[in-house]
Each structure stands twice: as structure tokens, then as C-alpha cells.
């Protein structure tokens, strides 16, 4: 494994790709590998790009990659698409729009299926970021599944969120209602070649006025036409400026700390769950509880309370 770690640090493509699979498949090597990589993490800038299905996230990313490459930044993209809940299969098609970068050694694009994880990303996305970070990519961008309002977990993984809105999708109303505005840092009104873009921009700016505290700089609202390569330089400039603000104001630090907190919390909970499942026959015990409630009319909460103590004791003795 030392070998693999070293190869990743050297930026070897095959090793990075393999490591991502290890992480994704939750292979036994995952935890020690991530621990070895951890000291080399923290240098990359992490953006999330999210928005409704078909808003133009991938097309924008293609343009953003090109612009960032002009500045010699090494870019990694994690593009998440949904896994079918019925078959477990997935078509990962985001990459198609960025494929002209396939032969650029400074660009690494990895498609990920959500594998049942809700939240617009995959469960392993958080750890894949670390692999890219340790491998020395300057900018890591996560493209979420095309989302509605509730699947915005990318907020807890990224330093900064680019929220893509388009005219004609009812985003105007959605923005006002659903609080999706809360999660964006940079607002992109894409498909400005379409009718309604200016109106949408006005409305977004109007809503944002209530969001912004007086001290913070306003969230940038930029109009783009990704297919025509229009507005991209403005997005980059605004993003860099906003990132600078996040850094200087201490918010970046705060967000990263919060991210770590959330992560540790999740890991501890997962581990506890594993212990319970491994050492205690939960399925069977729950079955017994159901029987008691249904057939013997016991009271659910009182019953569980009674059993919880014996459950904890049993685990302790292991």
C-alpha cells in the first residue's frame, strides 16, 4: 500500500483511478489508504456545481475546465449520476460533454454512480475528493445529480457552491419557495440565449437581497450561455473573488471545520451501526419486538426502552 500511496502522490493516473475504486467499493484497503493520504490533503480548492437536470452543469464545467487550464491549474472533476433503484445500474453521461479534455494530462474526470445514496452525490464522493486532493489537483469540482431542493448534500463537501439556474424551468418560483437560494455562493443563470434569462436574473437578485447580510459581499449572479462559451470568464473571475472573500473572512476555515465535524460524526455513527449489526442479531431481535407489540399489545416505546438497556449491555460484553 505504501507503493500505492506514493504513486498517488506522484500523480500516477492509474493509481489514482484504482484508489478511487477502492474507496468507492469500500474495499478493506480504504481506511488505511485514506489515513496515509490525509496528511497531504487540504491544498485543493473544492467547488460543487449543482442545479436542475439539464441546466447545463456539464457543459459549463467543460468551459470552466478549459479556462482553468489556461491558468495552468490542474483540475479534477467528480461527476455524479443516479443509480437506478430498480436495477442497480447507471448510465454515466456527464463526461460526454467534457470529453475533449480526455487527453489533457492536467485534467482527471471521474464518473460516479450514486449507488443508492440520496443527496445528489454518492456516499463515497467525500473520500474521492481526498484522493484527488492528495494527488495534487488544484481544483476539484463535483457535479451533482440534477437536483430539486432536497438533494443538496454537496454543500457539506465543497468549499463553494455554483448554483445553476435556467429560465423556463419555473426556477423563479422554485427559488423563492424552496430555500435553494440558501445553498448557492455563485449564481449562474445559464442559457441566457433563451427567453426569460434577464427576468430570472432580476428575480434571483431580488431574493438574494434578503439573504445577504450587509457586511458580506453580495453573491455574484452571472449570466452565461455555456454552449456559446459566453460569460465563462465572468464566472471564473467572480468565483475567484468570492473564494478570496471566503478565505479572508474565515468562512472557508469554518466550512472546512464543519465538514470535518460532520464527517467524523457520520463515521462514528456508521461504525456503531456496524458493531450493532455484527455483534448483535438486530433483525431477529426486532422481529421479536414486533411480535410482542402486535400479538401481546405491548407499548412500542416502553418496550424498546426496556430492551435498549439489555441491548447495550450485551454489546458491551463483546
Amino acid at each position: 500500500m505504501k507503493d500505492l500511496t506514493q504513486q498517488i502522490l506522484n500523480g500516477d493516473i492509474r493509481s489514482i483511478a484504482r484508489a478511487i475504486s477502492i474507496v468507492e467499493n469500500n474495499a478493506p484497503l480504504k481506511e488505511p489508504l485514506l489515513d496515509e493520504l490525509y496528511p497531504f490533503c487540504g491544498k485543493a480548492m473544492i467547488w460543487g456545481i449543482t442545479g436542475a437536470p439539464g441546466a447545463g452543469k456539464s457543459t459549463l464545467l467543460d468551459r470552466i475546465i478549459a479556462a482553468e487550464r489556461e491558468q495552468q491549474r490542474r483540475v479534477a472533476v467528480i461527476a455524479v449520476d443516479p443509480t437506478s433503484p430498480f436495477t442497480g445500474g447507471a448510465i454515466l453521461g456527464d463526461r460526454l460533454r467534457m470529453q475533449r479534455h480526455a487527453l489533457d494530462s492536467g485534467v482527471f474526470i471521474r464518473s460516479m454512480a450514486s449507488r443508492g445514496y440520496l443527496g445528489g452525490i454518492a456516499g463515497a464522493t467525500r473520500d474521492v475528493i481526498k484522493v484527488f486532493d492528495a494527488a495534487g489537483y488544484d481544483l476539484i469540482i463535483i457535479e451533482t445529480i440534477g437536483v430539486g431542493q432536497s438533494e443538496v448534500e454537496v454543500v457539506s463537501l465543497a468549499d463553494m457552491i455554483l448554483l445553476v439556474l435556467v429560465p423556463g424551468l419555473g426556477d423563479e418560483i422554485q427559488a423563492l419557495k424552496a430555500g435553494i437560494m440558501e445553498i448557492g455562493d455563485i449564481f449562474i443563470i445559464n442559457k441566457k440565449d433563451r427567453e426569460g434569462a434577464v427576468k430570472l436574473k432580476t428575480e434571483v437578485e431580488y431574493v438574494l437581497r434578503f439573504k445577504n447580510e450587509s457586511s458580506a459581499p453580495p453573491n455574484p449572479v452571472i449570466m452565461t450561455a455555456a454552449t456559446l462559451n459566453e460569460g465563462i470568464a465572468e464566472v471564473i473571475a467572480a468565483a475567484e473573488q468570492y473564494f478570496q472573500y471566503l478565505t479572508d473572512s474565515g468562512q472557508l476555515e469554518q466550512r472546512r471545520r464543519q465538514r470535518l465535524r460532520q464527517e467524523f460524526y457520520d463515521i462514528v455513527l456508521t461504525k456503531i451501526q456496524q458493531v450493532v449489526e455484527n455483534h448483535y442479531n438486530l433483525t431477529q431481535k426486532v422481529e421479536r419486538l414486533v411480535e410482542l407489540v402486535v400479538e401481546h399489545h405491548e407499548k412500542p416505546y416502553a418496550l424498546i426502552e426496556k430492551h435498549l438497556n439489555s441491548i447495550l449491555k450485551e454489546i458491551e460484553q463483546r
Partner: protein
Amino acid sequence: MNKKLRILIAKPGLDGHDRGAKYVARALKDAGYEVIYTGIRQSPEAIAQTAIQEDVDFVGLSLLSGAHNELFPRVVQLLREKQASDIIVFGGGVIPESDMPFLKEQGIAAIFTPGTSIAAIIEFIEANRPRVSH
């Protein structure tokens, strides 16, 4: 742990008809695989590089233009050069029977002509599962 198999479906060459490739991609998705689709007119270099970045287990090449004898072996060769010969390459499209021995010899693991059922492709993939479960 039942590893999720990842398959890249790619179209090398100049023809712009990707109906067949898309059909196969969707069918493989329905069979429970993770399918990466990269669109038409991909160079063998781009296909090989994509296969490596995506750490796929299989690459399925689809071609109607007739340049299979050149492009298919090129992909295999590039994967070999990049120490990725464990990735299994198969092909599909309008390919004459007489070309098949040559392609097999060049390392194309299987060839599926337009009449092939999806079931045959899935059978091929499953038969190779032990080989790719690293």
C-alpha cells in the same frame, strides 16, 4: 462484496451513428452495470485514457465505418502500453466474419455483430467477472 462492474461504451472512428452504442449502453445499465458513455468520434487515445481514469473493467467499442481492423487493436495496444491490459476489450458493429480471427488475435476478447442479443453480451461479461474482480 459483489463488485459493481464498470463498462465504457465508446465509439471510435468517424461514423456518427450512435444508436447501436446507446442501445447497448442502456441495456447494460438495465442489466445492473455502471456504464460510461462518451459519445461519437473518439480517438483510440481518448478511449484508452478514459478507460483508465474511469477504472473500468470492460471497454465496448462500437463501429460501423469499417476501420475496426485498425482502431480496435489500437485501443488494446494503448491499454497494454499503459499497463492496463487487464481491461477487457470487446467490439460490436458491422464486422465481417473473415476479420474476426485477426481481431481475436489482436486481443479483442469478443465481437458482437448487429444480430447479437443483449443476453449474449451479458453472458460474456458475467463469464469474465472472475477475471476483473481485482
